[in-house]
């Protein structure tokens, strides 16, 4: 299954997630995404910037090993997971507040692990 299919399957499992994107946090660019409708480039860029800012905040708090961050405001939930080894590889998502967040984190972590094992994209 390709990356796009992996992301599509993940999004299908969690309909509350409107966009799921595989991103390179250092370059701050979304490499592959799956969305309910065509995602605007500034939305995707914003997801990267938001993830970078959230991980930076965790590191300021001394949590350098933090590999999951979230932020919820304005009626949406932003979630980002990064690979513990390839730390620039991240899975970012924008979800509805009603999303099964704990379930999503488990599945998303498995998808990210699988992508990492495949050597990223």
């Amino acid at each position, binding site marked *: 299954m390709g990356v796009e299919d992996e992301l599509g399957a993940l999004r299908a499992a969690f309909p509350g997630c409107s966009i799921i994107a595989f991103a390179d946090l250092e370059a701050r660019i979304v490499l592959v995404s799956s969305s309910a409708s065509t995602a605007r480039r500034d939305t995707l860029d914003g997801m990267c910037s938001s993830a970078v800012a959230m991980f930076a905040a965790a590191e300021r*708090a001394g949590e350098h090993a933090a590999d999951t961050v*979230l932020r919820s*405001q304005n009626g949406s939930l932003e979630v980002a997971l990064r690979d513990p080894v390839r730390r620039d590889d991240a899975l970012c998502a924008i979800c509805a507040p009603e999303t099964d967040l704990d379930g999503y*984190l488990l599945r998303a972590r498995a998808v990210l692990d699988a992508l990492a094992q495949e050597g990223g994209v």
Partner: protein
Amino acid sequence: MTGPDDLLRKLGALSEATARFGVNGRVISENGLPSPVQAVLTEIGETVLAQDLTFHFGESGSLTLVVSGHRVLALRDVQGLLMPSVAAQLVGKPLSPTPDPVQRAFLSLLMQIDLLTDPVEVASETGAPFAAPPGAGLGVERLAALVGVTYPVVPPSQFDRFRAVLQPAPSSWLEVPTDKDPIRTGPAPEVARLESVAEALEFPSDWAKVSPKLSIIGHQSGRAFFIGAVIEKSGALLWTIEPPHLGAACRAFHKMFLA
């Protein structure tokens, strides 16, 4: 003064005089009595007889009150409803008519009970247990009145209300209201960790710049998530939570403040 036998007789008569709902085959609520709890406490109030009343909530929660003359004198025991450190604040301490930490914790407990939807069972030392159906209408104000506490002694803050809906109750909690000193609850090492995170993040002022109104931000450290919430005009708070309760906390925040 009414003795235990009289009390038992009264409770028995009350049971016979009331209708049965379909839940667990037994319930008391009729003849103008607004709730089973009201009915029992009315009886207790007439006896002026000190005794324990135990409320069971769902499968694991229970609250045992020392009652006399339609007033709660103290809390004998609390199980499954509060984190142990808060329960320790309450158990065995007399309830004061003036606002204090015990009263505050008790009000938090009442609000938590108010939000439960499980059947409520009530048992006295002398009467057979019986059950109220879900949604019996045990509003917090009514419950507070039943146990002799003027409600609200201290108007519950948004923090109080939010904390009351968090399940399980946070094991540690750092509250930074805009209008008073921070409130810290929980084991010292955990609270120290929260304060460390808060200081590093310039909490809450730094977050307020990013999100001046309502938001949650969090990161995972090991199994635990450090979750911070900024609540407009009220301040901010920080607590830890572990999966699989993260989603419920976020949903509660949205439901309470954004819905």
